[in-house]
């Protein structure tokens, strides 16, 4: 036998070649808490470098004072190296404890291609993957919108299967239950608008025109927009969370396997409820906002009758209808984005949280986009 040639020397790890055998000697404590444990790469380098591949890998663990999984995972790595290089792995040279654990760990071979784990891709490939994902998502959204439209059609010809009791319940959740928060926000909006108006108009002695400002701003824009934002955060998010949770717990699958359409049973009632309640809430917010303006006007020395007279002159039916027309669409936007994100939800609780966030973000985004489109349309129509 050749003389042992030490080729790697560390405190805890010594690798030597003795003929066609590679001896791995470990010493000292081998625990997870021990700092500076040698890495299995040392073994890999040694196996690869020593000219001819060793035939067998043997272990001498007599110097190991204590060990835990740290040792076993090191050995597992060595085993992997052996498998890769077709080197024999000498189980028998291991003490019985680590040997048994290692046997267990290697009993079921690593399943190849369990999942096409995406290796790090180059830039172009990443763009491609991203584009494919976005495209698939766009198709999904279109599919959902199509399904909703079909469900609506069946609703109008009276063939949709759903429960009116669900509609009433949702109307209560998204309508009545939202009154306090809508009241608060609309009142404060009126208040704020009035103060802003006062700053600009007082120098010109036109304090009375804060009635115009509050009235028009509330009726045309702020009431529907603020209600939209509130509903998106409140109702849209809750739609997404409800449907997402139902998806995760297979409740939607259960509905499907009964031959019932989740779109009709779950989405349609929510759409109807919000479609009906949103304009009502907007209307209500209009008046509360004007009342907020009135409070400010009174503190600034205007009288109740001055303010109301001014505001009734300023706000005509056209202005009202501008706000109302928008509110119908806003209701649909909030309902659809909320339900869409809920139905798209993945299969974990984390996915539900994500669906909720996405519902609010896309809800508000689309509200603003729609509002901008309406602004252009109404301007063109001179409304």
């Amino acid at each position, binding site marked *: 036998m050749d003389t042992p040639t030490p080729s790697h020397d560390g405190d805890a790890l010594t690798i030597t070649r003795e003929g066609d055998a590679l001896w791995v000697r470990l010493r000292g404590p081998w625990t997870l808490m021990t700092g500076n444990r040698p890495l299995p790469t040392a073994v890999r380098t040694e196996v690869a470098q020593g000219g001819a591949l060793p035939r067998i890998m043997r272990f001498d663990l007599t110097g190991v004072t204590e060990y835990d999984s740290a040792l076993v995972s090191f050995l597992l790595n060595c085993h992997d190296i052996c498998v890769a290089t077709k080197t024999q792995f000498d189980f028998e040279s291991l003490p019985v404890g680590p040997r048994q654990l290692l046997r267990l760990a290697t009993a079921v071979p690593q399943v190849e291609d369990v999942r096409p784990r995406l290796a790090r891709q180059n830039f172009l490939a990443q763009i491609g993957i991203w584009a494919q994902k976005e495209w698939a998502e766009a198709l999904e959204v279109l599919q959902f919108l199509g399904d909703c439209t079909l469900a609506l059609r069946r609703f109008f010809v009276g063939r949709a299967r759903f429960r009116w009791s669900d509609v009433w319940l949702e109307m209560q959740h998204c309508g009545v239950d939202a009154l306090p928060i809508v009241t608060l926000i609309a009142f404060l909006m009126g208040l704020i608008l009035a103060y802003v108006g006062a700053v600009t108009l007082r120098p010109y002695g036109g304090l009375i025109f804060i009635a115009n400002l509050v009235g028009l701003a509330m009726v045309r824009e702020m009431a529907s927009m603020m209600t939209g934002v509130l509903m998106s955060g409140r109702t849209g998010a809750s739609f997404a969370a409800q449907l997402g949770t139902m998806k995760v717990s297979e409740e939607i699958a259960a509905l499907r396997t009964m*031959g019932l359409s989740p779109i009709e049973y779950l989405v349609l009632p929510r759409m109807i409820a919000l479609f009906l309640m949103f304009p009502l809430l907007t209307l209500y917010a209009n008046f509360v906002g004007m009342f907020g303006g009135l409070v400010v006007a009174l503190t600034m020395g205007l009288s109740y009758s001055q303010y109301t007279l001014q505001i009734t002159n300023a706000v005509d039916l056209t202005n009202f209808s501008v706000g109302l027309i928008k509110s119908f669409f806003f209701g649909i936007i909030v309902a659809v984005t909320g339900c869409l994100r809920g139905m798209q939800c993945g299969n974990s609780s984390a996915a539900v949280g994500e669906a909720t966030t996405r519902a609010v973000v896309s809800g508000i985004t689309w509200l603003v986009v729609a509002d901008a489109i309406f602004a252009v349309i109404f301007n063109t129509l001179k409304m």
Partner: protein
Amino acid sequence: MTKSELSAHISVRDLTMAYGDFVVMRDLTFEVGRGEVFAIMGGSGSGKSTLLRHMIGLLKPESGRVYYDGVDFTDADDEQRTQMLRKFGVMFQGGALWSSQTLAENVAFPLEEFTDLGEEDIRETVALKLALVGLRGFEDFYPAEISGGMCKRASLARAMALDPEILFFDEPSAGLDPVSARRLDELILELRDSLGTTVVVVTHELASIFAIADRAIFLDASTRRMGGLGDPKTLRGQTDNENLRLFLNRGMVGLQLSHDPATGAPFVVAPGRRKS
């Protein structure tokens, strides 16, 4: 394929199942006869639930088809599909009760949707179904207020509500105590004998496989193919698939050490992989 060739109650032909690029199982072909209790066996993660989801139409096959009474289910149009779905009762792995409804409402739901029964009749039927699964008196509980095992049983009651032609179970007895699990097995056999229900059950409870299954399919995760098909009692002695033998013998065949003939390197033989 002609109708006569597909005379079985359920016929699965060359079914390949995949999630995206990841193929779960390839080329499954089997039949389930009318009134048969058919078990889908396999290790954890082998694709049992996935197969069930393909059979009930929640997932689309990568390729292959599923027929019911010789009628193509995979490519059926919406109307036909809905008709076929009405004959199914499905119990999901986690129960999947509608959490916003009480147990009674859950069980009553299919009755209200698909029958013209009056309120009183529905209440009685619901009480009966809940009693059958040992949940009498829990009518007004919400799913969140009962245990996981109770949810499963309630889910079974809902699946049975319409006396379906085919009952699908995903791991019915997982999470149940031995007595309830046993009662469930008896209930399944009872349903089959009295109503002629065909039962497809996903399970890895050996006791229940041997007690109730007329025939079984084994999904072999290592080859991603069917690892055996037939009566589990005969399969146990006769199969030449090592994974299946291991499975049916509670893994008691044991792990063995073997040697690579080429290099002489020792390695532990994985279940069913006596060196490929």
